């Protein structure tokens, strides 16, 4: 997929890391004066370094000769906290990983737990989880596109993206009661089923968001300032990206079609039709376009899931793992005991370890769980796509202009909660 203006010159990916020269050559009669690179500290309290990150820059005029990215300003000890609680107590912490796509974190963690426990959830639950994941992905992408346009100076486009995100958050709210900190998924199910009005509600919301997205595209994609800032900036070859461990829209924009929903499908992704948008050059414009297209594909997935979702239970019928309804708990001994044990000791898996990855908004979101046979995870690691992607920022801006840092950092979409955990 390539939506570049056919009238611009053809571009091939440069072999070196640095993008092509932009500054004009100095005139013949200039003096070569001695200089020192200027050190500039960008962040952590900078309007463009959202998610709090610090970029230490050494500049030669406008050109970056050296850069160092410092993360960790939002490190809250996710792993340590998870180790001190039961498996189901980790769900609110997972909300706060990639906090703009909270359902994907919930779903990923629940799937990892279910792999460890070896349980399979009912069909309706799978469809609901996919709908929740895709809706969250849309929230993540709207945030990314909106923030990028804001920082390039397009305030109106930002507000359109935020309004579109509000429609998406209304869907979150309908599913679980919260717009952002959703805590929707449970081990063996979801917290609550949806009502009969849900499909029509979601379709309406997505249609409204799509209209706003169309406005966003019309405002930005043909705008020469936007194109100038985004085209051919932040380049890195696909081999370099893979070697750095980059995944997600960043990698797909560079031409590598790695999407876990397609490569190692989970839930019902193998039953719905969707395309995986892949870019050509991997510059910031390609990353922007990949996300635009993914938003459309997410809507497509949600529509199909709404059509295909069967009636039935949303929780696995295993009182040792998922709370049985109060009707059974109050009337049957086994469920009563199981409820007590579940709440006090938590569900207990066998000894072992699993790794399960889902496609997060930014790439491969993996959970590595080590179990010692008790109700508390011995280790609960979140493999963060933002962390690995942010590592690529320094190579991407090497030799670039200072102004190129902004669209590059925005398109990496570093989410502080996920990067720093």
């Amino acid at each position, binding site marked *: 997929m390539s939506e570049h203006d056919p009238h611009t010159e053809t571009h091939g990916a440069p072999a070196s890391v640095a993008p092509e020269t932009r500054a004009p050559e100095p005139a013949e009669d200039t003096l070569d004066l001695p200089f020192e690179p200027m050190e500039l500290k960008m962040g952590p309290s900078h309007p463009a370094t959202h998610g709090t990150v610090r970029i230490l820059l050494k500049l030669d005029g406008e050109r970056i000769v050296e850069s160092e990215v410092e*993360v960790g300003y939002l490190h809250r000890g996710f792993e*340590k906290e998870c180790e001190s609680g039961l498996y189901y107590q980790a769900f609110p912490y997972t909300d706060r990983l990639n906090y703009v796509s909270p359902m994907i974190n919930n779903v990923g963690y629940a799937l990892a737990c279910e792999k460890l426990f*070896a349980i399979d959830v009912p069909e309706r639950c799978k469809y609901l989880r996919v709908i929740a994941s895709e809706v969250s992905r849309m929230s993540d992408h709207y945030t990314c596109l909106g923030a990028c346009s804001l920082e390039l100076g397009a305030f109106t486009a930002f507000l359109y993206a935020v309004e579109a995100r509000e429609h998406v958050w209304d869907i979150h709210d309908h599913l679980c009661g919260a717009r952002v900190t959703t805590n929707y998924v449970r081990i063996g199910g979801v917290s609550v089923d949806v009502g009969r009005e849900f499909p029509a509600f979601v379709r309406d919301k997505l249609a409204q968001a799509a209209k706003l997205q169309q406005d966003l595209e019309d405002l930005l994609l043909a705008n020469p300032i936007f194109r100038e800032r985004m085209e051919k900036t932040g380049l890195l070859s696909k081999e370099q990206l893979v*070697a750095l*461990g980059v995944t997600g829209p960043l990698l797909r924009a560079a031409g590598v079609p790695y999407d876990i929903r397609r490569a190692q499908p989970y839930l019902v992704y193998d039953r719905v039709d969707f395309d995986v948008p892949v870019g050509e050059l991997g510059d910031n414009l390609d990353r922007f376009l990949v996300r635009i297209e993914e938003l459309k594909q997410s809507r497509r997935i949600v529509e199909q899931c709404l059509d295909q979702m069967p009636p039935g239970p949303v929780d696995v019928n295993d009182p040792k793992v998922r709370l049985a309804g109060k009707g059974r708990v109050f009337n049957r001994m086994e469920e009563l005991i199981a409820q007590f044990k579940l709440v006090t000791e938590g569900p207990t898996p*066998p*000894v072992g370890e*699993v790794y399960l990855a889902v496609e997060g908004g930014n790439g491969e979101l993996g959970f*590595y769980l080590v179990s010692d*046979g008790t109700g508390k995870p011995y280790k609960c690691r979140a493999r963060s796509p933002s962390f690995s992607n942010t590592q690529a920022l320094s190579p991407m801006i090497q030799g670039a202009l200072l102004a190129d840092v902004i669209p590059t950092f925005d398109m990496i979409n570093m989410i502080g909660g996920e990067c720093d955990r």
Partner: protein
Amino acid sequence: MPEAPTAPTGEAAGVSETGDATARHPVLRRLADAFGSAIIATDDFRGDATAIVDRGALIAMCRFLRDDPDASFDLLVDVTAVDYLGRSPRFEIVYHLYSVEKNHRLRLKVPVEESDPSVASVVDVWPGANWLERETWDLYGIRFDGHPGLKRIYLYEEFEGHPLRKDYPKERRQPIIGPGAVHRDPMNDDLRK
């Protein structure tokens, strides 16, 4: 699709006998053929191909896994450690690998002793290991020999200790740092006194 549960493997997670797992995973077979005795054990609990390998063979094994056309593990997904406090060897460094071309995964585990918690850095094999190894150093205290700049990544330099170790209590307080810092005990801090 989760498989049927397998039998628990003893007090430490993941350590089991060789044999079965290599039959089910060609990658493990390939690794065992090339490195023989450096493979301490293999496992595939819940279908995750895992190899527990000797520390000395790590770099050679990583290069092989990246460059061998049947393995082709070009993407280093994750580097982390697990602290099995009370067991010897205490730590296990865990590498998760993925091949974009072949679409298969592998987990490598390297046991290291508490007395010498270090392992060779794989930065030269996968540059993406840079930050991941820094994180493991920061939170677990595992040194990665050959790393171009092994310093903390999440925590500040004056932080004392490695918090994800099992003997670091979650509630431990750190000394106050910074210019003009006067250390006050937060548990015993009554301004009226």
